[in-house]
């Protein structure tokens, strides 16, 4: 029992030691929240499919530090985002703006879907026509069909 309590105490102290590491977060929760929100919108350029909030790359660390400093200086979110775009381009934004260079990005999928829908519509119309255009069987065809059906019945 004593041992268990000791182990628990140790575990708890370890926990407190870890909590100490996260001091900046506790120091200014509002700023940290803004930092989190901003860094979730920014792409890490080293590991391109992660945002700066998730990435452990060193550059992401540096950029978080940079954002933190800017928040401290009282910069607005827009100023901070502009700072990043001026250096790394629209590519850093997970939500890129709509402009000439990004038209394909925004409109492309929609255009592809429209093309698909039009193609599908035309195809269905064509198929419908094939079905309705089918003339009734001629006397000879009817006779052949009858014969074939009887054949399967008898066998």
């Amino acid at each position, binding site marked *: 029992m004593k041992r268990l309590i000791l182990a628990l105490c140790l575990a708890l102290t370890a926990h407190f030691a870890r909590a100490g590491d996260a001091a900046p977060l506790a120091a200014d929760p509002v700023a940290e929240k803004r930092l989190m929100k901003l860094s979730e919108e920014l792409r890490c*350029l*080293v590991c*391109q499919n992660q945002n700066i909030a998730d990435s452990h790359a*060193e*550059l992401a660390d*540096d*950029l978080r530090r*940079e954002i933190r400093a800017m928040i401290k200086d009282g910069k607005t979110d827009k100023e901070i985002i502009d700072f990043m*775009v*001026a*250096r*790394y*381009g*629209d*590519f850093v934004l997970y939500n890129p703006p709509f402009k000439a260079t990004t038209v394909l990005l925004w409109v492309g999928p929609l255009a592809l879907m429209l093309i698909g829908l039009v*193609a599908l519509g035309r195809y269905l119309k064509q198929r419908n026509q094939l079905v309705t255009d089918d003339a009734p069987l001629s006397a000879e065809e009817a006779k052949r069909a009858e014969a074939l059906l009887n054949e399967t019945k008898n066998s």
Partner: protein
Amino acid sequence: MNRFLWPLLGFIALVVLLAVGLKLDPREVPSPLVGKPAPAFNLPVLSTPAKTFGPKDMEGKVWLLNVWSSWCVSCRQEHPVLVEFSKRASIPLVGLNYKEVRGDGEVDMTKIAPEDEKKLAIQRADQWLNQHGNPYTLSVLDLDGRVGIDYGVYGVPETYVIDKAGTIRMKHIGPITPDVLGGKILPLIGELSK
């Protein structure tokens, strides 16, 4: 015939699209800095740390800014190209030594006193240049990578061509190969030097 024509055309278009996509290097992000003035900085010079250097000192000259570090593996790959370039070229090649100490994943920064970082960086950078040759007119120390952020550096090595007016005219990401040097950088330098 017509039945197969459209799907075939669609398929070919898709193949072309994917083939082009495969050839693109996602690491080559177009830099918004091209066409803009080179961001100002004032950093200590590696050989004489008491002195500082900034892009202003290069006004009226066409010059190259090459971001390097001793821990950067691809820098070793491009280094012979730079050494060869420096022997023949008549324009300055400035090295931006990027996060020499703290950028090295093998260095435990908690064991290094802040005031020792610069000394260690100089020692490491000097040793590397002695070993591999020094193509740089001069190198400056960007210990914390702050200037690197201003230049949009996200992967060393990176190289900038800066014109007489101090405008960035080209950015190359990744090691400079003889092809890149001969095919892109040298012609641009020739044009800008006119």
